[in-house]
């Protein structure tokens, strides 16, 4: 591993203030919201509403046979035009996105890799359209299943 990377990471965690970005802001294609959801039939109501995805539990309930959908982690991420982008709502399950350029009607052509730690579960070419979510039914966990949700958001000032 290169020394510069080690020094950079060390400085990230050592400083209370993050180090200034070395590069100018990279060009972006769009913005996505990703979330890791724990779907179960738990008697305790753990359904959560989020402004990033209205009626999340209702819509997931139509695609997966569960009644409870708990958001474990979430991440809003800009998609870089020339660099890889990561959507990491959890260190256990996350996505790597590579932009393949704009698609019709405001969509984006993406190459997606769905990772579980060091193992890639699936690679896919996807045309992601505005407000048309992609649900990925992942591994089973406890009494339910882990689901990854990815949504392309309307253009906004990049965070």
């Amino acid at each position, binding site marked *: *591993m290169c020394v510069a990377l080690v020094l950079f990471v060390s400085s990230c965690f050592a400083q209370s203030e993050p180090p200034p970005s070395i590069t100018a802001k990279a060009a972006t294609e769009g913005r996505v919201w990703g979330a*890791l959801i724990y779907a179960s039939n738990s008697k305790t109501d753990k359904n959560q509403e989020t402004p990033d995805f209205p009626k999340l539990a209702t819509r997931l309930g139509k695609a997966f046979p569960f009644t409870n959908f708990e958001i474990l*982690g979430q991440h809003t991420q800009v998609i870089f035009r020339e660099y*890889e982008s990561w959507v*990491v709502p959890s260190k256990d399950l996350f996505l790597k996105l590579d932009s393949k350029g704009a698609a019709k*009607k405001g969509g984006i052509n993406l190459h997606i890799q769905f990772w579980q730690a060091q193992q890639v579960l*699936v*690679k896919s070419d996807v045309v992601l359209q505005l407000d048309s979510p992609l649900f990925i039914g992942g591994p089973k966990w*406890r009494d339910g299943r*882990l689901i990854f949700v990815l949504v392309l958001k309307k253009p906004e000032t990049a965070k």
Partner: protein
Amino acid sequence: MKTTENNDQLTRWLDGELTPAERAAFEAEMQSNPLLQEEATMMKRISESLHQSVTLEMPVPHSDFFNSQIMDRVYELQKSEERAAEPSNTLSWFSWLRAPWAIAGAAALIAVTALIWQTSGTEDRTEIVSLYAPNPSVQAKTSYNAAADATVLTLDGLDTFPADKEIAGYQVHHSENDAALATTTLYNEKNEVLVVMATDATNQPTMFTR
């Protein structure tokens, strides 16, 4: 004495289907016919007992999910029936085109079809173009769920996460990209670093956490 007509009226009386006039006449007949009255009383008792012990409406588990699956199946069946009917339709189209008004009609039809095609295509929805699961025991299935208005990619055959494992979720607020080092740093709402993502020489993700 009990007749076939009595039987029919008894059933309708039990089900509450008699008109007021029929009901009055039937109940008057019961007063004069002890056999009929005895049977009516017995049948009514059985009927009430059944209603008490049998739940006629059973809740369907995951009704939303099953309804949407049924609708998807119906949609697929309709599409396959339409496809199966296409060859015979072709013949009737050719004979229809012999009609004198065919050219004007066909032009109008083409214009309308083009308009519908432009406005109701699948271009608005997320589409999975290709898939590859490196682990051969993993089956990847894709579908469009109209009820959820979502594209669904289901991965079956994955190893189950250990039940005692805690899933560490992040609430990522924003990120920064460093092109020189090819890293992405993820921050929480307090501007604290959560994770630094990078890839190694073999393109494997490397994750640095606190």
